[in-house]
């Protein structure tokens, strides 16, 4: 305990974040194995993990790099479809579900990272709201492209067509991705354990990045781009680094999510999903990873809880009102001064701010 108190505050927060995730897993996993969880909660375990990773990765763009992204679901979509196609195509080649899931997540991360690199070219030229609109536009483009992609597999490998379902398959071939119908009959190989591992890996990647020379350069860009540039920080390189890592992590989360569902369709990863993830990040606090984890898991489970289900039709309305009230309560000057006085001495309020 004493050692914990003497730690550097940033290191302590990171350490406690790891510990809290581990603890949550240690409690939930035996309960899930023993069948003590309600069916809805049981079904939410994998999606919660995927959304937590999505929120963490978006927090890297929004909180650490300080740029608003409105198309994060696009990367999730790329990861989900490439991962699910890979898992389906490799069904016979890799019999072990574990290995197949890992490969699928890696492929999802790779593809999303590639798309992220492509997108970062225009993104790096723009600032502020214009950057946000370009990410929004890319999110829509990715959705349209995936909706018109047809992929099939046969003995010779993958075949694909665009716009028209004209994939010619050989003996024993089958379609995997059917354009707007998405991918049906996915074999569910995602597990809560895999989700937990992915969260831990994501945390490790982000914490190590943030506490490195590159991470400090990225945060310097966020705080004052011109000052950072004038001391020799390569703006393009570090912006791209943060953006691509964020995209790749979102891709892995997408693969995890897709392989925990029966079917996935491109319209699942639309603008609203991007916004939902942004809401997790902002409610949890920009730059605060533990905040993203809490907000993502709480807000994914909240509409499914018994209390909220009693409200039935009103639950999305209640969600909207909660969202507005939380934003008002945390940002209105009157309330902020009040809480600021309570918290004085703890410099929590000053850290991690984004212009």
């Amino acid at each position, binding site marked *: 305990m004493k050692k914990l108190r003497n730690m550097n505050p940033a290191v302590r927060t990171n350490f406690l974040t790891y510990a809290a995730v581990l603890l949550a897993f240690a409690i939930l996993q035996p309960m899930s194995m023993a069948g003590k969880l309600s069916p809805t909660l049981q079904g939410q375990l994998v999606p919660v993990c995927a959304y937590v990773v999505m929120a963490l990765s978006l927090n890297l763009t*929004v909180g650490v790099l300080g740029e*608003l992204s409105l198309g994060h679901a696009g990367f999730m979509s790329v990861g989900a479809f490439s991962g699910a196609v890979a898992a389906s195509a490799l069904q016979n080649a890799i019999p072990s579900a574990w290995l197949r899931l890992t490969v699928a997540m890696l492929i999802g991360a790779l593809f999303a990272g590639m798309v992220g690199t492509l997108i970062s070219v*225009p993104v790096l*030229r*723009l*600032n502020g*709201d*214009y950057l*946000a*609109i*370009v990410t*929004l*536009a*890319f999110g*829509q*483009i990715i959705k*349209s*492209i995936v*909706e*018109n992609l047809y992929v099939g597999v046969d003995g010779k490998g993958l075949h694909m067509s665009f*716009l028209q379902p004209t994939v010619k398959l050989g003996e024993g071939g089958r379609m995997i991705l059917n354009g707007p119908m998405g991918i049906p009959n996915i074999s569910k190989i995602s597990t809560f354990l895999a989700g937990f591992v992915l969260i831990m890996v994501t945390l490790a990647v982000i914490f190590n990045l943030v506490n490195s020379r590159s991470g400090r350069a990225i945060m310097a860009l966020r705080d004052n781009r*011109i000052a950072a540039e004038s001391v020799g920080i390569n703006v393009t390189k570090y912006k791209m680094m943060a953006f691509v890592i964020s995209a790749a992590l979102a891709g892995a989360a997408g693969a995890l999510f897709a392989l925990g569902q029966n079917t996935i369709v491109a319209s699942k990863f639309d*603008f609203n999903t991007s*916004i939902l993830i*942004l*809401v997790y990040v*902002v*409610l949890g606090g*920009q730059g605060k990873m533990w905040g993203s984890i809490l907000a993502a898991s709480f807000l994914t489970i909240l509409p499914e809880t018994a209390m909220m289900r009693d409200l039935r*039709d*009103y639950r*999305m*309305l209640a*969600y*909207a*009102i909660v*969202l*507005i009230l939380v*934003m*008002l309560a*945390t*940002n*209105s*000057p*009157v309330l902020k001064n009040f809480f600021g006085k309570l918290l004085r001495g703890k410099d929590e309020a000053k850290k991690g*701010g*984004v*212009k």
Partner: protein
Amino acid sequence: MVIFLSRLINGISLGSVYAIIALGYTMVYGIAKMLNFAHGDVIMVGAYVCFFAVANYSLPPLVGVLLAMVVCTVLGIVIERLAYKPLRQAPSLAVLITAIGVSYFLQNGAQLLWGSNNKMFPVFLNGDALSLMDGELRVSVATVVNVVACVAIMLVLSWFTGKTKMGKAMRACSEDKGAAQLMGINVDTTISMTFAIGSALAAVAGVLYMSSYPILVPTTGSMPGIKAFTAAVFGGIGSIPGALLGGLLLGVIEIFAGGYISTQLQNAIVFAVLIVVLLVKPSGLLGKQIREKV
């Protein structure tokens, strides 16, 4: 040639509606420096009000439109007062999330009040107004109304921002709020006024949009909202002529992309053009390039 012209006319017709919506986005952005994501849902509320006025109470369409404008104006002012005004000093991301919250609120409120089933918007702009080239090229009444409404609104707005006291106050606020306040301009009233005008325009746009795409659901407003937002950025957000240009271009590109290339990729092409434009002109077609000072 006839096909080209008729597509061009359809594009201008759709673009006029986008331009009217984009005006609301651009005015609010110019003055309050916020992206009002709830704007698309104000369109939807306007459309519902007009729908009920015309279909249930059999009021004349014009009264329906006026009623929708009044309701949306009040709605816009109330939203601004309750949700955005307390956050005037807050970081822009907080305001953005609040706007998203308001958007969810309006969509779900509409779903509770009016149900989620499709409603067919009554067609009151039917028939052809003009018949050109030996009757091969027809221009519908809806198109004429869209274009006339768009041009009229543009002219009135240009006059309003250029000549009236309130309009000048708006321009002053968009330049520098602090200085405007020192000159005796009531910034809060000016911002409320901007929201009121933007929301009234949204109501008009909602009814016009419904005349072309007559299926009314609580999420009706989101897609034209996103498109019009894109149009506003396309033309240079904050600029009123930019909104008109952006809206018209976006409408024409959308119809041409759908007609000549592929309807499935319509939206993708629209957004790809936007990205290309922003790459060449990073602050939109008519936007001001702001020099960074250290």
